[in-house]
């Protein structure tokens, strides 16, 4: 198995790991969004969905564990690449013309990634911990209410929207970047992949960001 780990530790291997974990997370986000969109169906629908998930808890736990591993690999590998890449250029340029040869999404992956990580921690604290580790409302299966309360806080909602936009930055580059890393770049298909990436990103950003906005402006009054 030496060859396998050597391969994963090579510069291309590390890219590959980033891309594989990234693609898993892209897929996870789709499921996550579908789940979230049930909020628009009202408290009853959402609470039922969450309650049903409670019913298959062991399976959910396994999926969650896999997700955690993927996240950790993605984050750990990203940080490691960032440190190594910094070392590859110990002295930087006085004038940096990067804005003229590359796009902002690709250059800011570490920054957007880091912010998303912080957001992730807060997000887990707000929702996952509340749903799973004891919250008076959760005990009564009033999950919808937890969400509504959280997004009722304008500061939280605004930060959530900002984070989702930054996530969009991350996804926009990550989507096509993964295909490039897998070697699936081809004159014919790659422009389509880039467009798909953009569409995916826009759907994700609008989808996720609409929820706090909905709660803040439209639902907030009814709380």
């Amino acid at each position: 198995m030496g060859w396998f780990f050597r391969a994963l530790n090579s510069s291309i291997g590390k890219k590959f790991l980033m891309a594989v974990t990234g693609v898993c997370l892209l897929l996870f986000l789709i499921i996550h969004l579908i789940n979230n969109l049930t909020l628009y169906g009202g408290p009853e629908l959402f609470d039922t969905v969450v309650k049903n998930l409670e019913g298959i808890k062991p399976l959910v736990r396994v999926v969650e564990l896999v997700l955690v591993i993927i996240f950790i690999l993605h984050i750990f590998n990203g940080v490691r690449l960032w440190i190594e890449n910094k070392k590859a250029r110990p002295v930087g340029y006085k004038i940096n013309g990067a804005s003229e040869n590359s796009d902002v999404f690709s250059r800011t992956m570490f920054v957007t990634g880091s912010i998303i990580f912080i957001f992730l921690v807060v997000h887990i604290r707000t929702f996952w911990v509340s749903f799973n580790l004891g919250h008076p409302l959760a005990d009564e299966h009033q999950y919808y209410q937890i969400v509504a309360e959280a997004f009722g806080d304008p500061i939280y909602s605004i930060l959530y929207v900002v984070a989702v936009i930054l996530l969009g930055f991350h996804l926009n580059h990550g989507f096509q970047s993964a295909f490039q890393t897998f070697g699936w770049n081809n004159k014919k298909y790659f422009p389509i992949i880039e467009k798909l990436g953009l569409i995916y990103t826009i759907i994700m950003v609008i989808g996720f960001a609409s929820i706090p906005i909905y709660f803040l402006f439209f639902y907030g009054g009814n709380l």
Partner: protein
Amino acid sequence: MSGNMNLTLKIWRQANANAVGGFVTFNVKNISPDSSFLEMLDILNEELEVKGLDPVAFEHDCREGICGACSLVINGRPHGPLDKITTCQLHMRHFKDGDTIWIEPWRAKAFPIIKDLVVDRTSFDKIIQAGGFISVDTGGVPDANAILISKEAIETATDAAACIGCGACVAACKNASAMLFVSAKVSQFAVLPQGQPERYQRVQAMVKKMDELGFGSCTNTYACEAECPKGISVRNIARLNREYFNAKLKSENVEA
């Protein structure tokens, strides 16, 4: 002559590999817009020489954009503000009278500075020595027309083979990665029938050497392609990745 320019230059100067470097300001006068960027530096150096001062060391040779010797990050961009040319092909008509121009060397751990704007790019040679060739001795080869090669394959190979080894890709990459350089050579041989026998061995050996030499990893910003004077495409990097995975999955060599 009318239309000639006066310019302020901020040039990185460093006495040798171990010395502390810094920017030094120079003024050059009466530069013709038809002069090349390097001719402008020649004029500066002649002025310095006539005063008995050490001229600014910079690398250059063919001055027609093919040898790959010239470098320079000009106002933050490798080979200057224009796309798809080398510094020696950059003409002063693309600057304005009174401009301030910042001139820096390629910066990468794998390209240490030797003096002023001159860096050591031996690492590129080392990567080629590790596998950037087809193992064929002189003589005893088949007739040149014995193996047919499609026009499409030869065009792809030539696109990749046009790399001049200047290092602008490394200089432009925020991670100082050499992936575009390596991928160009790997691609050239991967699409040609002559390159097949060593296909797996080559890509593994070259990537291994590249990693050893302290280049960074590719994060797909594509700055390399944007700054490449020969417009080498990042599709070559995709092909390199593909070749590498293939080699790892299909080759039975567990040592590589």
